[in-house]
């Protein structure tokens, strides 16, 4: 009899991590005993590690035969992937052994801006070159060193201590991901994350985009998400898919709403309109947990009593601070005249009046979704939300609102910040935010982040000179540092009031030339740095054109972490353990940084790399006010260079794991068990949601707008800083009429950004680049399935046009006014990456008109398509 994975898990229990790894055989059952003919039998063992190619570092076991790794399989004990792997995870073994990996450090010998010519260098020489340059720039201003990451797999060892020890500026990939959504959710709820469901309880789901079957949710990857999705569906979850393209949801769309690209904000506003009209409103939540009752004056500002936001108490007919203990029943609707003669309205009334203009008929024109469908979806949401109902979980009676949105990458558009706020607003009206079955934001615990909650509310727009990231500037005051904005600043610093420009960049595991939109602009950016060093296992296209020094990193052959292991419901932590020695002369990044920091002179002592590692791995306690450091028992000494294994041994012991790193070498993951219901649901917390009033009304956004205007910023920067989400046509609509199609990009399950489209097995699977085009659209242009076509984009702000040549794939599952391309491909350095077609990032634009008000990237552009 064959044990299934489920049966194995059952027998192993949730605490399966306690099993010895050598006894685990994924995908089946415990290993058979040693072979009878074992005299000459090979050493055949399974050792734990963690997936390297993807986003969520699924637990893996490596089968090692006589020291040679022959296969990775999922670790059955890991909550995220429970003994399975996605196609990337399975195929990555080919890329681990890839003979095209970089073998030794390389130093450029030709001019930058074209394919590199290189000489081999020793690690000592290469690191000395980088360290000398770092020190030269540090003498000028350490902030002019950029540390840029794509896929940092350890914030605690890379993002924080490297940047802090150097005093550098950090750039991430968030602006190309869904930072607009993160900022919208942080500002509105104080929770860092983007909209996703509570699969164990959600009954009705609005789902956006390719994530549903090709990418998974925020902070989680595909396997975890889809396992939960399938189970939820079998329990009766209805999925309404909102996407110009059907393929992403495939057979799991119970209903497909092929929305016009970049009109999601209009759709969300119309949903709010109908919910308010039909009275699907959770007054209790709005009164007690949002700023809906706060009184707003005609100028849009909130009235305050003794510095605290005021509400109108209906019982006493008096103005009171919202937190006044004598408050009985705050007013939600209507108008009040204050003694001063000022007329004020509760924020909820302002919302109602604002949303009244956004009727389903109005939205139908914009979104292409019929008005009656919008009405029906809103009514279904309202019905399914079961406002007022409760459910008993672990002895707690909690609000039950089993409706939610999956809108992770909906944020990737010019109006992404406000579209996310509007969608969140839908679920606020329904009282579903943080309720059981309702709208979730963070994965795992409902983490109220007081610092972020306060930060985006405190308008601190400075005067020039601005930082080259334009943070706190009158241009993009709320922003999380978009490299393409830095590119614009470097092209014209005067225009942006910037005096000091970055001089060098350390590119950590990312390939910005391919991975992110606007390749041309990215090329311009990297050409302007005095010095570029790239850490990567492969010759990335960015390194090929612009690196001065390349440092070859290991892939999976290194200790790395700590890695979160939660599947959203179960708490777990893992570690990447090397299943083999680093191939060639590659090295793990932590090893590289230990040596580099030493050479720079910032490894040891106070405020050195080790000092910050201690802080981030919680090996010391630092008093926030006095900055006094109390070392814990496992703190790293600040005067000697540790091994990487020693760092993680101390970390593990500091976590209370007696065996230290050996625990992870045996098990790969520590499963801590399910989150407590009072930690998991915001509504179950004491006080609910950490005691904050969710910002249905965004007064601070109005203050940003006023400040930006006062400082002379152009309308394009402040137009979307509105207290309530407000529709306007996206900038791209100003492109000439012959650019008659929308280009969207999407992810394939076979690939992960630009980092896998040269893995032979995955490339074989994907079949290369293709343009999804509707049959009617193709027919009108004389295009047949498989034809080569040009896709030409137009920048509505600058008038620039660009084009790429690609093979057409005719599919009925896409809107006739929309074409789509997966956001992979376009590689040129690896033999398996060549001739697989272009990346859409070559014809997407960045900069004004193609970024949100929070400087986050849009993935929409108007194009025309014609036969090649």
């Amino acid at each position, binding site marked *: 009899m064959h044990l299934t994975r489920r049966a194995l898990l059952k027998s192993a229990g949730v605490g399966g991590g306690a099993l010895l790894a050598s006894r685990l055989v994924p995908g089946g059952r415990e290993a058979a005993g040693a072979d009878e003919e074992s005299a000459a039998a090979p050493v055949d063992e399974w050792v734990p590690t963690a997936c390297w190619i993807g986003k969520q570092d699924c637990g893996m076991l490596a089968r090692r035969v006589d020291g040679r790794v022959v296969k990775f399989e999922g670790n059955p004990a890991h909550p995220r992937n429970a003994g399975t792997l996605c196609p990337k995870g399975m195929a990555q073994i080919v890329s681990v052994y890839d003979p095209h990996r970089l073998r030794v450090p390389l130093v450029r010998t030709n001019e930058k801006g074209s394919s590199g010519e290189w000489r081999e260098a020793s690690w000592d020489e290469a690191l000395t070159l980088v360290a000398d340059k770092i020190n030269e720039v540090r003498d000028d201003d350490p902030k002019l060193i950029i540390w840029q990451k794509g896929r940092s797999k350890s914030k605690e060892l890379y993002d924080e201590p490297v940047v802090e020890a150097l005093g550098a500026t950090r750039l991430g990939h968030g602006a190309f991901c869904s930072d607009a959504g993160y900022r919208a959710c942080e500002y509105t709820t104080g929770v860092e994350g983007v909209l996703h469901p509570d699969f164990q309880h959600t009954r009705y789901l609005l789902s956006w985009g390719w994530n549903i079957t090709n990418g998974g949710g925020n902070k989680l990857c595909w396997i975890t998400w889809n396992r939960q999705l399938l189970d939820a569906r079998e329990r009766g979850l209805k999925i309404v898919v909102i996407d110009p393209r059907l393929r992403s949801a495939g057979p799991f769309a119970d209903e497909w709403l092929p929305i016009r690209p970049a009109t999601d904000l209009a759709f969300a506003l119309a949903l709010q309109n109908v919910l308010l009209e039909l009275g699907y409103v959770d007054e209790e939540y709005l009164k007690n947990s949002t700023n809906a009752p706060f009184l707003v004056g005609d100028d849009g500002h909130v009235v305050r009593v003794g510095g605290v936001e005021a509400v109108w108490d209906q019982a006493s007919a008096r103005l009171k601070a919202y937190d006044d203990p004598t408050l009985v029943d705050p007013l939600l609707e209507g108008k009040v005249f204050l003694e001063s003669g000022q007329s004020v309205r509760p924020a909820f009334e302002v919302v109602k009046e604002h949303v009244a203009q956004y009727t389903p008929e109005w939205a139908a024109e914009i979104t292409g979704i019929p008005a009656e469908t919008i009405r029906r979806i809103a009514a279904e949401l309202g019905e399914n939300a079961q406002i007022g109902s409760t459910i008993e979980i672990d002895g707690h009676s909690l609000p039950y609102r089993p409706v939610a949105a999956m809108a992770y990458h909906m944020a990737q558009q010019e109006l992404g910040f406000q579209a996310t706020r509007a969608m969140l607003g839908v679920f606020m009206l329904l009282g579903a935010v943080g309720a059981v079955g309702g709208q979730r934001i963070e994965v795992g615990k409902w983490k109220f982040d007081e610092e972020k909650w306060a930060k985006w509310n405190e308008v601190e727009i400075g005067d020039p000179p601005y930082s080259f990231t334009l943070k706190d500037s009158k241009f993009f005051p709320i922003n999380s540092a978009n490299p393409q904005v830095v590119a614009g600043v470097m092209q014209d610093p005067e225009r942006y009031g910037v005096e000091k420009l970055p001089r060098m960049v350390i590119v950590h595991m990312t390939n910005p030339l391919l991975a992110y939109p606007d390749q041309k602009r990215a090329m311009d950016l990297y050409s302007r740095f005095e010095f570029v060093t790239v850490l990567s296992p492969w010759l990335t296209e960015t390194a090929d054109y612009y690196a001065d020094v390349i440092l070859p990193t290991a892939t999976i052959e290194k200790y790395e972490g700590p890695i979160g292991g939660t599947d959203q419901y179960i708490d777990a932590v893992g570690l990447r353990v090397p299943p083999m020695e680093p191939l060639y002369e590659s090295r793990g990044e932590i090893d590289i940084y230990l040596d580099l920091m030493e050479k720079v002179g910032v490894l040891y002592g106070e405020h050195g790399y080790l000092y910050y590692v201690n802080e981030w791995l919680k090996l010391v306690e630092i008093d926030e006010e006095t900055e006094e450091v109390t070392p814990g028992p496992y703190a790293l000494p600040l005067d000697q260079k540790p091994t990487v294994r020693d760092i993680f041994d101390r970390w593990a012991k500091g976590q209370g794991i007696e065996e230290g790193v050996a625990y992870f070498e045996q098990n790969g993951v520590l499963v801590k068990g399910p989150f407590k219901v009072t930690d998991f649901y915001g509504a179950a917390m004491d006080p609910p949601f950490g005691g904050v009033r969710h910002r249905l009304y965004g007064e601070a956004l109005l203050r940003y707008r006023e400040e930006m205007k006062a400082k002379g910023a152009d309308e394009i920067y402040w137009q979307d800083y509105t207290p309530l989400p407000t529709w306007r046509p996206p900038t791209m609509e100003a492109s000439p009429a012959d650019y008659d199609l929308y280009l969207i990009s999407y992810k394939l399950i076979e690939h992960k950004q630009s980092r896998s489209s040269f893995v032979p097995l995955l490339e074989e699977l994907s079949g290369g680049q293709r343009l999804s085009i509707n049959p009617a659209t193709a027919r009108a242009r004389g295009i047949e399935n498989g034809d080569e076509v040009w896709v030409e984009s137009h920048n509505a702000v600058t008038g620039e046009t660009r084009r790429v040549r690609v093979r057409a*794939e005719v599919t009925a599952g896409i809107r006739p006014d929309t074409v789509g391309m997966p956001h992979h491909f376009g590689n040129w350095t690896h033999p398996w990456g060549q001739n697989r077609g272009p990346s859409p990032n070559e014809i997407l634009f960045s900069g004004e008109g193609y970024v949100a008000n929070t400087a986050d990237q849009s993935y929409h552009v108007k194009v025309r398509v014609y036969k090649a």
Partner: protein
Amino acid sequence: MPRYGMVIDLDRCMGCRACMEACKIENATTEGHFWMNVFRYEEGEYPDVHVGFLPRPCQHCENAPCVKVCPVQARHQQDDGLVLTDFKRCIGCRYCEVACPYGVNYFAFAEPEDSYYLDWSDPALESVTGGAQPPYRNPDLDVRHGPDGRLVAGDGHYGGVMTKCTFCVQRLEKDLDPACVANCPVDVFTFGDLDDPESEVSRKLASTRTFRLKEELNTRPKVFYVGTPPGEDTRELEPVSKGRE
């Protein structure tokens, strides 16, 4: 003696093709060989479109046409129902490929060393891999299996032979599920002994309506499907590469 069979639940399949990759690594199949192939297709006209996925391993037919036409008894059926190729006997006539109505046979046109995606002959690699081709080659493939001790497992033994899905004969002998089954993240597959009424696969068959591919040909496949069969006007989406010329 078990009689192995598989149930594939199309209502759960996400079309991710992880099973295909699990097969590729486990069996070291060569470029362009997809012993497991997940077809992606669509039906209907915009906006009433249906997308579907269909995983297709060898059907391990009870009445296997490929076995009947093999002139040298290389293609054979074991007592446990597995339909396998004895690579020591195969003469590469490809009659089995012609006889099979399911398109599951993949012929090794090239020698194995030219069929593994990249040039692996590299001294720096060989010091780690011992010269294995490909470096991840599963050692269980190069030993004999089955009651008669035949060379039947995995791909990449010789050029000029016919290969196909074996239900992972090398794993079954260790009491492990086939690689595709074990790796499926969303439990599309059920595998086991059709003759054991208590087996998971028998229970699934007893409790669910299933269909088989081309049932009218009386090949009696031991692969059963749950869900809706693809219609007449299906259009394939996103086909895999056919292998490099």
